[in-house]
């Protein structure tokens, strides 16, 4: 009797939150798919992507008149250098953002536009992260670890959350 009632309650609850549960399931599934694809294509996609960030950072610094050098995924300025690794290339964060955007029930065109604009924004923010970490390492080495492991990492995820929330305020959800 008790179990029938609780089963009925659970069914009603699922019915009531159908859209939300569907989003959660889709979002989780897309996140796993994004991870699997990126992890499987590490050499083909992630490594060249990371090297491109190092190269772009180097070009940006050069354009600003800084004596910068680049070698593979490493980029440096006089007195300090960083090697860009998986944690700092934003590609997995872009994957997570894509999972959230494509799981949201919006028209496909809006989802594609949201993904592209968000991915570009995250890429640019990541370039800022690398440049700021280089500057921090050069002028305040003591603060580098905390900024790298804690502040920027969390800030970057907050940017992902804000971008997604910002995008959802501009799209028209479909049932």
């Amino acid at each position, binding site marked *: 009797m008790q179990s029938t009632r609780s089963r009925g309650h659970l069914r009603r609850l699922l019915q009531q*939150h*159908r*859209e*939300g549960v569907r989003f959660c399931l889709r979002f989780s599934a897309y996140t796993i798919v994004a991870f699997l694809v990126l992890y499987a294509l590490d050499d083909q996609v992630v490594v060249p992507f990371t090297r491109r960030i190092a190269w772009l950072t180097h070009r940006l610094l050069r354009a600003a008149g800084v004596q910068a050098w680049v070698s593979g995924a490493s980029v440096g300025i006089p007195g300090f250098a960083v090697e860009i690794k998986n944690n700092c290339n934003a590609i997995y964060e872009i994957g997570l953002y894509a999972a959230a955007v494509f799981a949201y029930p919006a028209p496909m065109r809006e989802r594609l536009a949201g993904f592209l604009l968000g991915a570009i924004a995250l890429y640019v923010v990541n370039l800022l992260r690398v440049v700021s970490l280089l500057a921090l390492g050069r002028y305040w080495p003591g603060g580098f670890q905390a900024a790298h*492991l*804690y502040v920027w990492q969390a800030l970057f995820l907050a940017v992902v959350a804000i971008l997604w929330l910002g995008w959802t*305020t501009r799209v028209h959800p479909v049932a």
Partner: protein
Amino acid sequence: MPSSGSAGLPGFIQSLRGRWRGALLRFAASFALLALLWLALAPLYAHLLATVARPFIPILEATSGSRYRVDGSTIVAARRIPLPEKQEVVTIQRTLWDGAADYNVALLTALLLATPGWSWRQRGRAVGWGLGLLVLTQLAFLAVNAEYTQLWPIPTKYGPLRPPGFSRAKAVLFDWLYAFFEFMGRGFFALLLYWGRLALTWGVGGQGTAISAVGRNDPCPCGSGLKAKRCCGA
């Protein structure tokens, strides 16, 4: 203040338009405060995880005599591995979990506390459920890491030796699992849980009730620039 939970996610999103500055400020302040608090709480949290994990040592560990100890905010597995051919026992230590740079708890709590339109009771429940689920994900990571680190070569004075129970398939499986949990552990679980919690406000009201989440004096969600009471909410 109307509750966004009563108007579904679209309602929450609409109400966010008018209150995003306050929400952002609350998030930044809560996150900074919680991150500082975490410096003191991380060792306690490590003790909590280790206490929950210890009863599972016989299942997780291949060799008897292994134990998990907490060193600051780090959980370390101390393993005694007998080398039958050499007639000796080596003791190795592997880090299973490091709470020093873990910001999942601070991030999830700050996001939930900053979310506009929820009552304190709703926030409290969301934080409780969120942290409970987060602990489960971290326990799962700890379990995967316990298995993963047992597949590493054992350093001995005779050179690195293959660990007992090693198989290529197991190494590949746990390499992927470890990478997945490591990737998700960078705050992704916190975001997943937060967005999941937001999504659960869906369907309660749905699109049609989006306006009800916007205060009468808030800007109208249609973007006209008028107050809701003078526009669509009239």
